[in-house]
């Protein structure tokens, strides 16, 4: 049978289950053809079918149909990923997971919520706020990004330095594997376990290559009474990372910490420029701008803010950013997402070129060295530097999940190749500096060709894990183990 015949038969089988919630229409396939990753217009990446399941049983049936006709299954969530994780470049069935958007249980006694994996972080938090609760894993894409996407991509969180990433607050999940079986993985509502193998942890960052996540149980937290944000100017990036560790050693509970280089600050102060019609002023000596927030009871927050300022000024010669409007504008852009209506930083910044990043994770003492090499590597591959941000993604320690961002000219295939060459060389640098190639985007369709550099012989074990969950190789093929961009 030809592929077209398989697709037609799969469509007929799926129609019997999903009715109008399955389509082969080119228009709908087009709407599921892209995420946020840089690519040339010639990369069409149309799936063959799009299906909207509403529950785990329906996903099981869907995967069984895919197995019957050997068609790829690609889970689609927020569609804001930067690594091509949802690009159906091998065709197949696109699973629109946002139909799985129910709140299944809110357990107030155990501060736990069980949700369909397709609920967005924003919607979940709107619901939780009615109970004076919140879920602190919050990537900047939270208006569109779903819980399933956070699990699949192991993405970043604004509040990582206090609450960690999704895994810290995930207690169990349901995975429909490539075998067409639904299994619950994890530790029920407990926050830890010493039994068995940690299969739930394998799924975090698996990018749909082991199965489709359909449900998740999450630890939630009481909403803090108040939050304050301040900015500090420092002489170097390494100094900023050290200063942060010192603040934590002092016993301060920091709610979020982000360090920008001078250029990157521009990108995050869109709201400020829109509102006040001026550029942020940063003295020439300052090479790093560290934004810190504290949350909790007002007197504790006030004390923490004063103590932080004293340590940074007295021990590190830092200056507090005097213009609080600039800091508030940064926070609007990072967390509140309160852009002036009809004005927004994302489309405003992408008109000519496109945002792209290498997202390395590094040891905290290598930042200035990495920054210098970033500038050389970007220049070598003709990338316009947008700047560098250091995110802190693990609880109570200074860490370096870094966005080395550039503006990508996506008008030619050669430019796109240059961007991915830039990512490859930055990834090599990460391994040399004893770090990791990706700290929040994932392998997607970009790192697989050379991530043996990082994983070595363990990559073969990863292939075996993949084969265990997905023996037919239908779950999101073309990701994690290969790159489509470099020869």
């Amino acid at each position, binding site marked *: 049978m030809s592929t077209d015949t398989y697709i037609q038969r799969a469509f007929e089988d799926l129609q019997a289950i999903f009715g109008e919630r399955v389509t082969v229409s080119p228009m709908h396939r087009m709407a599921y053809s892209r995420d946020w990753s840089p690519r040339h217009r010639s990369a069409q990446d149309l799936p063959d079918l799009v299906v909207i399941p509403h529950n785990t049983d329906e996903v099981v049936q869907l995967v069984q149909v895919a197995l019957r006709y050997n068609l790829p299954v690609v889970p689609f969530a927020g*569609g804001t990923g930067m690594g091509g994780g949802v690009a159906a470049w091998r065709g197949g069935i696109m699973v629109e997971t946002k*139909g799985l958007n129910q709140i299944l249980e809110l357990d107030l006694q155990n501060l736990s919520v069980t949700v369909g994996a397709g609920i*967005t972080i924003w919607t979940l938090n709107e619901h939780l706020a009615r109970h004076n609760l919140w879920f602190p894993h919050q990537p900047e894409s939270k*208006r569109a990004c779903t819980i399933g996407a956070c699990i699949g991509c192991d993405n970043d969180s604004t509040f990582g330095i206090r609450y960690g990433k999704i895994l810290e607050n995930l207690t169990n999940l349901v995975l429909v594997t490539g075998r067409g079986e639904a299994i619950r993985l994890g530790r029920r509502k407990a926050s830890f376990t010493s039994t068995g193998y940690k299969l739930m942890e394998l799924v975090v960052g698996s990018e749909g290559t082991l199965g489709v996540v359909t449900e998740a149980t999450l630890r939630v937290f009481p909403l803090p009474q108040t939050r304050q944000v301040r900015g500090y100017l420092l002489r170097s990036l390494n100094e900023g990372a050290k200063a942060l560790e010192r603040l934590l050693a002092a016993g301060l509970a920091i709610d979020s910490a982000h360090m920008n280089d001078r250029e990157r600050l521009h990108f995050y102060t869109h709201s400020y420029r829109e509102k006040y019609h001026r550029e942020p002023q940063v003295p020439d000596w300052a090479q790093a701008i560290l934004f810190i927030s504290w949350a909790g009871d007002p007197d504790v927050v006030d004390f923490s803010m004063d103590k932080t300022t004293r340590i940074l000024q007295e021990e590190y010669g830092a200056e507090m950013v005097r213009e609080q409007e600039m800091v508030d504008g940064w926070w609007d852009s990072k967390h509140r997402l309160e852009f002036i209506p009809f004005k927004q930083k994302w489309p405003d910044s992408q008109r000519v070129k496109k945002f792209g990043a290498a997202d390395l994770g590094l040891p905290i003492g290598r930042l200035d060295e990495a920054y210098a090499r970033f500038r050389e590597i970007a220049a070598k591959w003709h990338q316009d530097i947008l700047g560098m941000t250091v995110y802190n993604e693990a609880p109570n320690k200074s860490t370096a999940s870094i966005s080395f961002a550039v503006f990508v000219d996506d008008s030619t295939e050669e430019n796109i190749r240059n961007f991915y060459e830039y990512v490859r060389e930055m990834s090599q640098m990460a391994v040399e500096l004893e770090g990791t190639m990706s700290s929040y985007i994932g392998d997607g369709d970009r790192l697989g060709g050379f991530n043996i550099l990082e994983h070595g012989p363990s990559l073969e074990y990863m292939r075996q894990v993949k084969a265990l969950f997905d023996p037919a190789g239908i779950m999101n093929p073309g990701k994690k183990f290969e790159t489509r961009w470099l020869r």
Partner: protein
Amino acid sequence: MTAQDALKPYIDDIYTCNRTRCGFCREECPVYRVEGYETYSCRGKMLVARGLLEGTLQPDEEMARMADECLLCGYCAARCALHNVEIITALRETLAEAGFRAPKHQANAAQILAEGYLFPRTSAIRRKGTTPLYLGCLYQSKPAEVNTVLSVLDKAGLDPLIADEVCCGYVVEATGDSEGFARAQERLRQVYAPYADQEILTLCPTCTITLRDKYGLRVKPAIVAVAERLGDLRLEPVAMTATYHDPCHLGRMLGVFEEPRQIIRALGINLVEMEHNRTFSTCCGGGGGVTAVNPKLSAEIAKNRIRDALAVGAETVITVCPTCTPTLLRGAGRLANEVDKFVDVLDLWQLLDKALGA
């Protein structure tokens, strides 16, 4: 003219959306909320528009149905920095040019262009006075509601003049006929010429935005004129807990958010806000001609808006738009069958008239 010409001025915006993909427009889009496919959200439509421009997609009936099911409510635009509503209107025009225009839309536009109004009128409403009041097609077909408005305006000391009027043509343009709209514009300019230099009071938010933006007329929603005189009015208190639904054109597009709320508070009503209000309010389901092409979808969207009201404990939804009131009322009626609770929908003019007494 090729079918894609209408989209070409927006190529830059379309590609900007395609390479951004932030998705801020998607989750609360009332149509996406019901239909579930990304295609119905603005960022999905932007990829479809790209497909048409690059020739990888061909216009067809399904695509036209999708475009016709947009409410043109502007929620996506409020979350964005692009010309979202204009692009979707251009998408409709592209599809209409290619021969795919909903028969119902075609019939409505033809009716407006032939007769000068959308709905049959029992008789044209006229009134002598000093300040021009433009009724629009919906109010012209509802003499009882017009009497209620006139009663309030009288009591507020306004002296409205209702002259000959023809349709503003919004429906003609919004359903993809820019040439027909040019004819409708020409006709209204002629008929309404005597009042072109005066401030014109209006009732329908959609007519108001069209008269302002497409004709350059000086318009003021009549409800704003009443709010300005609120201090002079003696109102009987109304005991209820209600929420206010911002009509898209009156709120998001004309910026009238506080005046209706001031009136509601002056009536002594306990006003509770829905999660999505003011600039980020969501459509009732009656925008963009959706009721004409897919009344079932319109009703589902209206039900969702009533669910929003229920979620904040409102027993009544108050609004001030001749499209929103009946659309929400339909939604409330249908939802009552599912949740066993009826949320009433009241027009602010009606409440005001009652509170102002004889």
